[in-house]
Each structure stands twice: as C-alpha cells, then as structure tokens.
C-alpha cells in the first residue's frame, strides 16, 4: 500500500524497519542481532516463560522481546549489563534444577541450555542442587522422557496442543513443584500419544528424545550369520546432510548408500520403491471405492501417527482408512517374504532396518499384524537423527563420500515415490497414476502444484473420466481433526483425505534433525524432494519397472489375493487399549 507509513525502531542505535513481525524479537533478529531464547519457538504460540530474550528499552526498562509487539521509535538494547545479569541468573537457576549429566545426554551436541550456559560464562553454581531424581519414562516405543532435564519451557506442551490437538503433555502442580507430564502422572506409553515426536522436535534440552535403537542395529550388523538390509525413507535423504555441513534439502541418497555399505549393511534399498507400490495398491483401492461409492472419503494410511489417531480418537472411522500398509510396512512384508519364500533364507536370518524421519514408525513396526511367527517384518527403525549418529560414530564424513547406486530390485523408484516425503506428495503421486489408469490418457502436466506447499490445508479437484474427485490434503492432526468433524457431521465434500501428522509432512518429522528454530529448513527439504522428482527419468509409480516386475513374478496384480495378504492390513478400535498389550521384543 502506498499510504503505509514506514515504521522503524532502533536496535543498539541502528535504525531497523519493521512491518508485520509478530514480536520485537523477530525484528531484532532480522536486524542481525542475536537474542538468546529457550522457550521461544517461531512456529508455536509465544509463551514468555524463560525470560532469556529480555532486552532493555529506553524509558521502559526490561521487557521480554518475544512477548512485546514492535513499536515505532523505541530504542532497544540487547546486551546491557542488566540484561546479561538476568540471562545469566536464569541460566544459573535452570541449571540448579537440571541433572547436568551432559556427557551422557543424547542432546549433548545441540543442547540449547548447555550452549547458552557456556556463552554466558556460567561456571559455578551458587545454588544448592539437592534433588531427588524422577523416574525416566521409556514406556513409549518412540520417545524417552527424562523429567530431570526438563526446564519447563512448555514447548512440548504447545507442540502437542497446537499441532496435534492432543494435549498429551501438560503442566501439573504449582511453584517449584511444577512438572510437565501426561495426565495423572501416567507414562507416555499408556496414554493416547501417537508418537509423532513433535514434542522432541521442539525440546531445547534432552528431556524428550527419540528412543534410540542404534545399539540393537549394531548387534544385528555385527552378527555375521544375519543378512541385514535397509530401506531409506524419502524425507531422510534431504535432511541427513544437514549435520555434515550440507544444506538442508541437499539430496544425499547416493552418499547414504555408500555410508551404509561401509557400516556393514548387505543391501541398501529404498522406501521409495514401496511408496510406488503403495500407489499401485492404494490407487486401485481408491478407484474401487469410487466405483462402488463406499467408504469415502478414503483416508491415506502412510502416516502411523495418523493411523493411531484414528484408531484411538475416532475408532468409528477406521473403515475410511486405506487398507494399504504404509510404505515401510509394505517394504518389510514384501521383501522378507521374497527373501524367505523365494530365496529360501531363514526368516530369523534376514533382517530389515528402516531409516525414517519418523518416531511413530518405531511403534508401527511393533504392531502384531506386521510380524510373522513372532518375527517382525521390519526389525528396527532408526530415525534420521540416529542415522546421523550411526554414521558419525562409524567415523564417516558423509559429505566427503562419493555417491553410490542403490541396490536392485528394491532400490528402484520413481519421482512419485520420492515426493511421499512432503505433505501433498502422496496425493500427487496417486493422481499421476490413477488419472492414467482411469482415463487411459497421459497426464499433460505432471507437476500438480495445488498439492504442494507447507500450509496446513490444501485442496484440489481432479477430473477422472467424468468423475470429479475432490482431494483434501492436510498436515498436523489438528488440521486433520477439522476434516474428521466434517466426515462425522456429513458435510465432507471430498473423496480423498491425505493426512501427514507432522508439519509439512515427513520432512518435518519428529525424527529429523532438530530445526525448530529455523522453519525455513522444512521448505528447503521439500524443495529437495521435488527437485529429485523433476530430475528422475521415471516419475509415475506405475512406470517403475521393478514394481511391474514384482507384480509379474510374485504379486500377480494390484489388489490380488497375495497382494492383499502382504500389502494390506486391517485396523482395530484402540480407543481403550492403545498399544498396551504390545511389547518390544
């Protein structure tokens, strides 16, 4: 607008222009000044609890910059003696209530508290540190909660509420007895936690972390009697390089193949392969449901946090979920079945490890329906974070490796499989295939832009041989819940609902390298996936030659009896029991 008055304020004497920044902190940071924070998370609501971001404003004294809206002409000082004293005191107070077992903490390298304590020269603690240690909650297959490290910043509470609408974690008690806990002091494994890991993704310290299965995987690899193969999920390849000095979004799939072979995996495969397979099965299922006009809208079933959400919160709606297993689960059942029943390897000697951006996948692989004779289809799931640690601990610098090819046949994939890692990718991949199957015509423009982008809600209409199909794409369960309410009250006007529980899809997964202070990384990772898609020779799942081959040689055709037994599943009402009776092996 031409009549908008230019608004400025002063940071350390430097005139800084501002427009619609949500708080003073953003303006200060935009101007290139650093202000420390612990509880502030740009994508969550402002909490104002840690007081690290205090600044001094002339005439107004000390203010927390995260809670203060920018105002014209104010003069802000970000590093005065008074400000530093408060920050240092806050750090000293937090550490006096922290277990300080930094050497053994999984967040040792990227702990925000440790980093700031170091920067602010907190060397000796003047306050007594006597405290009894609270038990560590490792009941969840996905996450570990250590209350002794919690600094009560409330980021996890906000993430669970604001992203997933679940409110699994909340503040309890008052004053210095305040703790963050699931309801009634229960364990994470005993409540309706879907395991998405968004709490861990925003934790500034090591209080909520991804449960590590690295040692179990090491044991498998060290056992020479076992064949150990692995699959890599789409979103992993565009994030794993971040910890090795590469840019977010840089595709390191070839380097990962090299690294994982050095570590000792017998074969390095790709979950993109089974993503292509998912499209064949789910696409066929969708066409069937539309023809029959039943169980619509169809809900995608790739996201295990979403599946558990439906099973626990809306068990009446499970019939809407696609019966197609998730790409991880399909990969496990199919590849093991081929190894055992075609190649004659003993089931207990053939092990599959999957690398996922996702913490909920750790729970998914423990589902009873995804094992045969007590042997799991996918033996272990390591998140991107664990993959990075595994590579580093093996003395490998990922960035310096020459890319290698993935193994065939299960390392063959199309661009449609790759984009599964971003919100909208499943819908786009499905449309590419379904359109061509239904219409028999080639799709003019393969890039379906309406499916792309990080926003929570997207929709588009597709014309499939006279039938108009409305596709709704949401990410985060809070957005999904709005759609479910429409299904419940009968106002749902869409036929397909794609849901990914994490913001932006799997690229923002709870197991990805922590990026909560740098939201731009999610877009960069998504761009990396779309870039790979655009560069691949094959970009439609039904064109994947190895997918065609496996149907011809092993599965007959999409939706066949065998495909059903290996690639589909059924859902149960978990309203009361969650995963109570399922235990890790």
């Amino acid at each position, binding site marked *: 607008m031409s009549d908008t008055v230019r608004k400025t304020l002063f940071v350390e004497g430097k005139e800084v222009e501002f427009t619609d920044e949500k708080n003073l902190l953003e303006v200060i940071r935009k101007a290139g000044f650093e202000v420390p924070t612990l509880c502030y998370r740009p994508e969550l609501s402002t909490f104002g*609890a840690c007081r690290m971001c205090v600044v001094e404003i002339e005439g107004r*004294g000390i203010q927390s910059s995260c*809670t203060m809206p920018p105002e014209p002409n104010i003069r802000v000082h970000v590093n005065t003696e008074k400000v530093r004293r408060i920050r240092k005191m806050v750090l000293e*107070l937090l550490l006096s209530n922290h277990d300080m077992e930094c050497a053994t903490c999984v967040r040792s390298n990227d702990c925000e508290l440790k980093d700031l304590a170091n920067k602010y020269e907190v060397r000796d603690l003047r306050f007594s540190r006597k405290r009894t240690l609270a038990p560590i909650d490792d009941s969840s297959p996905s996450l570990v909660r250590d209350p002794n490290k919690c600094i009560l910043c409330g980021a996890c509470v906000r993430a669970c509420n604001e992203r997933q609408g679940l409110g699994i974690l909340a503040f309890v008690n008052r004053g210095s007895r305040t703790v963050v806990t699931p309801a009634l002091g229960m364990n994470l494994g005993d409540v309706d936690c879907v395991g998405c890991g968004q709490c861990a993704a925003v934790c500034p310290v090591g209080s909520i972390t991804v449960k590590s299965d690295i040692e179990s995987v090491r044991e498998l690899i060290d056992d020479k009697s076992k064949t150990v193969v692995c699959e890599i999920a789409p979103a992993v390849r565009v994030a794993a390089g971040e910890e090795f000095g590469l840019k977010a979004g840089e595709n390191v799939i070839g380097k990962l193949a090299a690294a994982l072979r050095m570590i000792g995996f017998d074969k390095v495969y790709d979950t993109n392969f089974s993503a292509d397979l998912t499209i064949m099965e789910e696409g066929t299922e969708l066409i069937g449901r539309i023809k029959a006009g039943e169980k619509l809208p169809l809900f995608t079933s790739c996201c295990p946090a979403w599946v558990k959400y439906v099973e626990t919160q809306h068990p009446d709606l499970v019939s809407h979920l696609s019966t197609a297993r998730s790409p991880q689960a399909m990969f496990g059942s199919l590849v093991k079945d081929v190894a055992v029943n075609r190649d004659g390897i003993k089931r207990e000697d053939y092990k599959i490890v999957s690398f996922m951006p996702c913490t909920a996948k750790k729970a998914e692989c423990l589902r009873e329906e995804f094992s045969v004779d007590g042997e799991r289809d996918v033996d272990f799931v390591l998140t991107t974070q664990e993959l990075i640690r595994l590579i580093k601990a093996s003395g490998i610098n990922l960035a310096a490796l020459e890319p290698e090819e993935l193994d065939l046949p299960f390392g063959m994939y199309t661009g449609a499989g790759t984009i599964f890692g971003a919100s909208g990718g499943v819908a786009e991949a499905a449309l590419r295939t379904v359109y061509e199957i239904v219409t028999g015509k080639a799709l003019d423009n393969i890039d379906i832009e309406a499916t792309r982008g990080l926003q929570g809600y997207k929709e588009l209409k597709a014309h499939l041989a006279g039938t108009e199909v409305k596709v709704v794409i949401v990410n985060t369960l809070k957005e999904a819940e709005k759609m479910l309410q429409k299904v419940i009250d009968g106002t749902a006007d869409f036929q397909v609902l794609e849901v990914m529980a994490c913001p932006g899809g799997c690229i923002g997964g709870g197991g990805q390298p922590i990026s909560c202070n740098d939201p731009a990384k999610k877009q960069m990772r998504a761009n990396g996936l779309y870039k790979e898609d655009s560069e691949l020779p094959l970009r439609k799942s039904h064109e994947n030659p190895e997918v065609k081959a496996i149907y011809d040689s092993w599965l007959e055709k999409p939706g066949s009896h065998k495909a059903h037994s290996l690639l589909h599943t059924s859902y149960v009402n978990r309203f009361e029991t969650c995963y109570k009776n399922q235990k890790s092996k």
Partner: protein
Amino acid sequence: MEPNELKIREKQAESAEKIAAQGTRVFVCAGTGCVANGSLEIIEKLKEAGINVQTIQEKKMTVVPTGCHGFCEKGALMVIPDLHFTYTKVKLSDVPEIIESIKTGVPVDRLLYVDPITNEKIAKNEEINFYAKQHRTSLCNCGHINPEDIDDAVAIREYEALEKVIRTMTPEEVVKEIMDSGLRGRGGGGFPTGRKWMFTQAAKSPTGKKYVVCNGDEGDPGAFMDRSVMEGDPHKLLEGMAIAGFAVGADEAYIYVRAEYPLAIKRLRIAIAQAEERNLLGKNILGTDFSFSIHIKEGAGAFVCGEETALIASIEGERGMPRPKPPFPANKGLFGMPTLINNVETLANVPLIMLNGASWFASMGTEKSKGTKTFALTGEVNNTGLIEVPMGTTLREVIFDIGGGIRNGKKFKAAQIGGPSGGCLTEKHLDLPLDYDSLIQAGAMIGSGGLVVMNEDTCIVDTAKFFMNFTQSESCGKCVPCREGTKNMLKILDNITKGKAKMEDLDLLQELARSIQAGSLCGLGKTAPNPVLSTLKYFYDEYVAHIKEKRCPAGVCSALRTITIDADKCKGCTKCARNCPAGAIKGEIRKAHEIDQAKCIKCGACISNCPFKAIKEA
C-alpha cells in the same frame, strides 16, 4: 428524567415497608468468622426464643443474619441499632439474657465491648474506637443488611445508581464520571479504573461481544475485604458490575470466586437470582434496552489466579497461568473478546460514585489516591479485623486509634502491608499517609490491603521467610525467575534462620531479588521479593545478627536459641533432665546440671519445667 420518575422508587417504597414491618431488627453477624464462632446456631435459637417477644420499643423483634461487621475477633457479634446495643463474643448460652435485654432495654453488661486502653464498657457501636475512627463506604452496608434479602438492598437505594445510569447517562458519561472520581484499582496495582473502562469501551470486538469480569480471587493471606463485600453486600457488587457493563458495552459478566468462599458463592447466587426476579439484572433491565447477565466461576484457590490474565485463562478452562501482556484484556481478554476486569472492592465503589457523584468520592483521600481503602488489620494489635479508612490515613491512626495499640503493652516493631507482594514499614513510617504512591516510595504497596502488625517479639527474617514461602509455593511455575528464583530465595532465608548462612548469601539474596523483580513475567513474580528487600533495607542488622552471631534477636528462630542452666540457681532436682525429649541434660542429683548443646533441640521443655527459674535462653 427527574430522580422521582425512576422506576426503582416504587420498589424502594415497597421494600422499605417490608423492612419497617420487621420491627426491632437484631443483627447477628453471619459472616464466615462469626459462623465459625457459632452464629448460625445463635440465630436459630434467637429466632425461636424471640417469636412472641415484645421489645422495649413495643415492637416485635426480627433476627437478621448479616454479613461481616469487620470486628471478627470479637465474634460472634450482635448489633441492635434501635437499642444501641453491641454485643461481643456472644455464645449460644447468652440467648435468654439477650432476649431479656431486648425486652427491658437494659444491656447485658458482660457482653459489651471493653476498651483496651480505658477499660470502659461501651454499648453503642459508633462509640467503639474500632468503628468510630473508620470511614466505611464500600463496606458501609456490611453488617447492616440481610445479604440474602434483596428488600434490604433496595430499601437502602441499591440499584438506584444503575437505573440512573442506564436511563439518564451515556456510556461515555459514565466512564467520565469514574475518571473524574479518581478511583484506582483496589486489587493491588492501583491502575486508574476510569482508564481501564475507557480502553475497554474503545476496544473493537470482532463479534460485538464484550465481557465484564469481577476478580474475587482474594488470595493474600489474611485479607478478606472482598469476601466481606460478597458475603455482606452482594447486590452492591452486582450493581457495580452492571454499571460497568453498561459503560463498556458488555452484556455478560463473570465473578471469579475461589471455591473456599462457599458462603460468598451461596449469597452471590441468591442475590443474582433475586435481582433477576426483580428485573434488576437479566434481559431488559427495568424495561430498558440494557441487558446484563452474571455468571459465577468457582476458582480452585490459586493465588496466581488473582493475576488478571491467569484468571481469564482459568475461566476459559485452561491452567491458571499468566499470559504475556500485551494484548491487554481490554483489547483481547476472556474468550478473545475485550474484557473489563476489576476487583470486588473497586466495583463496590462504583454505585456510590454514580449515586453521590465523582466529586463526593474525590473529596476523600489524597491528591492521587481518592476515596477510601479497606485493610485487613491483623497481628499484634488490640483490635483486629476488617477496617475501611480514607486514603492517606496514617499508619499511626490505623494501629493506635482503630487498632487500639499494640497488645500487652509491647513495642511496635514493623507492619507488613500489601501481603506477600508488599513491604515492611517501620516506626519511622508511622506518620506515613497510607496511599498508593507514598507506599511505593517506602518500598511497600497497598496491594489488596493486608496489614500485619508486628511487635518486638517478631523475627523479621522469619516473617520474610513466611511470605517467601507463600509466594514460592503459589508461583504458577511458568517463568524461570519466579519459579526457580523464589525457591532459592526461600532456601537462603531458611539457611539464615538456621544459622547456616554466610554473609555472601545476603548479596546473592539481593542479586536474586533484583533479577526476579526485573525478569519475571507477571506481577506475582515482580513483587515477590518485596518483603525481603524492604526488611533487608530496614532491618539489615537483624539479618546480620542471624548470620554472624548466630543469634535471633527476637528469640523466634528455634535453631539459633542457646539454652543454658545457671549453676548457681540449679538445685539439681533432675526435673529438667527427666523432661528433656532429647536426653541432652546431664547431672548428678542435688548438683548443678548441664545441657549438651550438640544434643539440645531447643524445644524449651526444660525452661518451662524448671521450678527454680534456673534455665535461661539466649
């Protein structure tokens, strides 16, 4: 419109008739304090015994349960204004004599108040110093009406101001009147009420909805002025809220009361129902276009819910934790709508201002603090209770005139004013006018009006520790300085009272205090260090004595007591050794005994058991 054309006039006449028909009214306090002293049973028995009684004035007698009279320590209280009787410490067994006195007009002598200084017996309520020196405005009806009968309220012109406002004034005029009165928030902060109203009035609501919220979450230990208004004169509060609603454009309101005020909740509910029945609340009040409904929200009794944003969160069903301001409630408050939030006492002043005019209100008090203020006067004074005085009254007048001086002829040492957020005043402040600004300058604050008087036997460190213990356990736990800082301040204070502190700890204590003041999110944290800072300022030596000499000058801190046996006086009777629970006293019979200081737990059992006064404590 002329005053006589108000519709309420008719109702007033009706109600006055009903009241007159009650004959001689016997007011028995049914406030929480007196109920605890058995006043409900007394009321029942009096009603029974008084059925056919003809009073000296040849009228029938009617027993009227009232709200708090303020002089709770003398409960159960009974006042018969027609006969000029005030009875104190009434028991159930006194009823026959009281009935007799009503018949004969001769008061029951032993139930009369005795002046602690002159030892004179006083029958007339208005002649008792405790009342005579007060100036009751917001509390003016407490104790003089039946809070459960709206006729009592209407007869004394309650709701008249409301009708006057909605029939003859514009919202802007109402806000201006409140501005001109100089009324400031009585809940603690002292923010100009008129400005708060103006902001809420000016705020744009996304849906047109605005709310009025009454903060009745009285949390200061010992303060009970808000409870007294809600229990004793609920209609005045409801009227004040309705006027506020008219002024800011709200049609719905909440009163946030802590659940541990069941009597206040009960009486408010009765009052709301009665007012709705008479069309003084609800839809189209008195036939006008103005509608106003009031809900009650029971709080769980967290101190922090007295902070307005935490209170709003609590009404919304969220955990009571303060939210960052801005946005201020005036712009984005309850359920995201513009919300006016005022404390009970503030709102109780509103009808009087509208009835008597801003200049009447502004004529009381000081230049910047207008009107009157209630104080919960407790501690070592002769008369404790709830009082109301004009702003600017001196501490001396409060303690020595109304309070009747220090108990048992002891010496005044200090007064803690403003509760756990307030500060300490000393002898040199006795002539300080009690108003918002003078107190802030002295390092204290009016707060909600808690006033604890301490004598020479009070340990100042122990007192600071008491308040710090309160704020640290009532901190909501959200921001680091308040949650962790108060915990560590308390730890240091505890060490001082146990003789385990070093002089450096005093520096750390002050450093912590300054960081908490400057760095906390809400008022609770920002003011939590006040009791420590003000006592450090005025009683530094007492802190030092605890640390350096391991001595508590007031002899309160048990860990610092040293108990010794005077060998010259000890006869060796062994009684002390037999009564020592720690086995710390040794000695042969008929020879002087000795205390093993390492074993002594300083309980003092030996001192009270020694027949020869040979055991002393230092």
